[in-house]
């Protein structure tokens, strides 16, 4: 039970935060705000899920925002400018995401390069390619997209989960299962926990490492696809700095950057904490640009410290 304490700490922080905001702002405590949290943060959440796996394996990936932008632009360009049907365009985009992620994983694994730098290269590369595909944002106008955008599950008065939120939640479910129920998931934990041990235990370390980055490439590309559904457009300048937000969500969710320790479900908590802080500040609406930045920083600080304190209290005491 104690192993789940950091996870509970994250959700306790979330509840405190949400409760405070509800007490301070009218109409905050509504199903609509909650549903919005899932829709508006869907693609951030998806990149954060991919990032969780990378961080669990002891790595990091800075390319997610740029890969998202590339995917968006690619899909939009194919559909609008080259009249492809969205399905093949999306499939190809996802495959490209996997290929780019896998390629970075290959470089990191085979040549023992620092992930920070390789993925930094990947970030510049994907961003450049996004602009190469189209320097301007492109509207996607296709009945397939309209159909996707019309999918809604009503969860309350004036509140519904949209397709993007459903993709996010299904991926979350899949990711939790992947992490917990499959050998691949457990190998990631082992790899991040102790790489040399994992190697000596005969686990497929090299393959797992490459697969983790490929998986994250897939998640980033999927996030890009979800963003096209969310916005109905492709924008090559999208997602600048998204990688840092994703990393922050993962860490707030209780996953250690050193690898091997953490939960995908915690990342959900991290994303929701992040989203709730933003929502609360929007509801407040009285801060000017600079106070807004300071407030985000201060709130991040407070909730990171709180999460840290809670999980410290619950950390297994070694004898």
């Amino acid at each position, binding site marked *: 039970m104690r192993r789940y304490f950091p996870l509970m700490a994250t959700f306790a922080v979330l509840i405190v935060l949400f409760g405070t905001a509800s007490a301070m702002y009218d109409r905050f405590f509504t199903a609509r705000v909650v549903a919005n949290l899932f829709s508006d943060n869907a693609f951030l959440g998806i990149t954060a899920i991919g990032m969780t796996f990378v961080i669990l394996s002891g790595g990091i990936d*800075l390319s997610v925002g740029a890969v998202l932008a590339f995917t968006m632009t690619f899909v939009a360009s194919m559909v609008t400018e080259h009249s492809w049907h969205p399905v093949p365009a999306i499939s190809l985009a996802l495959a490209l995401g996997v290929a780019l992620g896998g390629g970075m994983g290959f*470089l990191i694994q*085979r*040549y*023992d*390069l*620092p992930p*920070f*730098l*390789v993925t*930094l*290269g*990947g*970030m*510049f*590369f994907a*961003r*450049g*390619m996004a*602009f*190469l595909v189209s*320097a301007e944002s492109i509207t996607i106008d296709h009945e397939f997209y309209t159909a996707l955008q019309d999918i809604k599950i009503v969860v309350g008065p004036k509140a519904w989960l949209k397709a993007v939120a459903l993709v996010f939640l299904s991926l979350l479910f899949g990711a939790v299962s992947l992490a917990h129920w499959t050998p691949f998931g457990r190998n990631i934990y082992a790899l991040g926990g102790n790489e040399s041990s994992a190697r000596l235990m005969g686990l497929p370390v090299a393959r797992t490492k490459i697969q983790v980055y490929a998986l994250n490439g897939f998640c980033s590309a999927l996030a890009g696809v979800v963003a096209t559904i969310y916005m109905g457009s492709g924008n*090559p300048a999208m997602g600048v700095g998204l990688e*840092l937000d994703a*990393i*922050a969500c993962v*860490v*707030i969710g209780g996953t*250690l*950057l050193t690898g091997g320790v953490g939960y995908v479900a915690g990342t959900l908590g991290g994303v929701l904490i992040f989203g709730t802080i933003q929502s609360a500040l929007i509801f407040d609406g009285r801060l*000017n*640009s*600079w*106070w*807004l*930045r*300071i*407030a*985000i*920083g*201060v709130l*991040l*600080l407070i909730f*990171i*410290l709180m999460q*840290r304190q809670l999980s*410290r209290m619950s950390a297994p005491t070694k004898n």
Partner: protein
Amino acid sequence: MNDPLAKLKRWFTGGGLLWPLLGLAALLAYDFAFVDGFFRLEVRDGHLYGTLIDILNQGSKTMLLALGMTLVIATGGVDLSVGSLMAIAGAIAAALVTQSEMSLALIVPIALCATAALGVFNGALVSVAGIQPIVATLILMVAGRGIAMLITGGQIVTFEHAGFVYIGNGHFMGLPFTLTIVALALGGTSLLMRKTACGLFVEAAGDNETASRFSGLPTRWVKLSVYAFSGLCAGLAGLIAASNIKAADSSRVGEMMELDAIFAVVVGGTALTGGRFNLLGSIVGALLIQTLTTTMITQGVPPAVAPVPKAIVIVAVCLLQSERFRNEVSGWFGKRRATA
């Protein structure tokens, strides 16, 4: 007779200086061949004038950031807040220059103290509160820009203060004054690191923190100090940036420069995992980035695709540093060194 040569070789390869220098040399060779007038130097208004001088001058900010970042990375950390700290230093200096009668001898220290103090805040989050460096410094990265904008009221504050403008635009002995600053900072830091035990403390604490603590090293103070030092360097870079354009552009200055600085440090041979560091290597790394940027501007690479060459250089330099890759390449050419 072979010994000094071997020593030199060890200094280059062992310190990791060889590959960034090679990368820089390759880039300069390209410029020499394909960019007209890249190496042209002339004397104008009593100082040197040319693209190479620009690279040194524009690169001074990254070099200073890399200097501070080197020590932070040597302790196993990273500082994402340097760009925002640059903005704060610039904002404070601009505000004081325009709104007070204070002398520059007071203004500069005030601005630097402020960023150093914020560096201490970063350090405290990392060493006392035990927050992971990326996240700890992310806080000031976000909030710091807000503080800078608060100081300038969100405006670009311009000034014409001759003394302050000299910092980023003046010339000293025919070269940009910023180079004097970088040289002093590099020299001072090197001396501090190698002629006192500070360097040993930083490397030991970064390589094995527990063992260092058990040996009586004040590891918390070491961490606190390197972040403070990084803040100081960022402040200096911020003053140069503001002085250079005679304005404090608090919302934009230093954006993404933290990544350039980290890249410079790692290319320069300091591992992100901490331990041994190489100050000179970081400087070379910073020059490599600036040369690349300037090359792309002069070569007319469309700005939208400019990130692609940058990506290629990053990955190429990384690969060059990988022993396995080098072995494979020499294998392709059938010249594999005999290992037996």
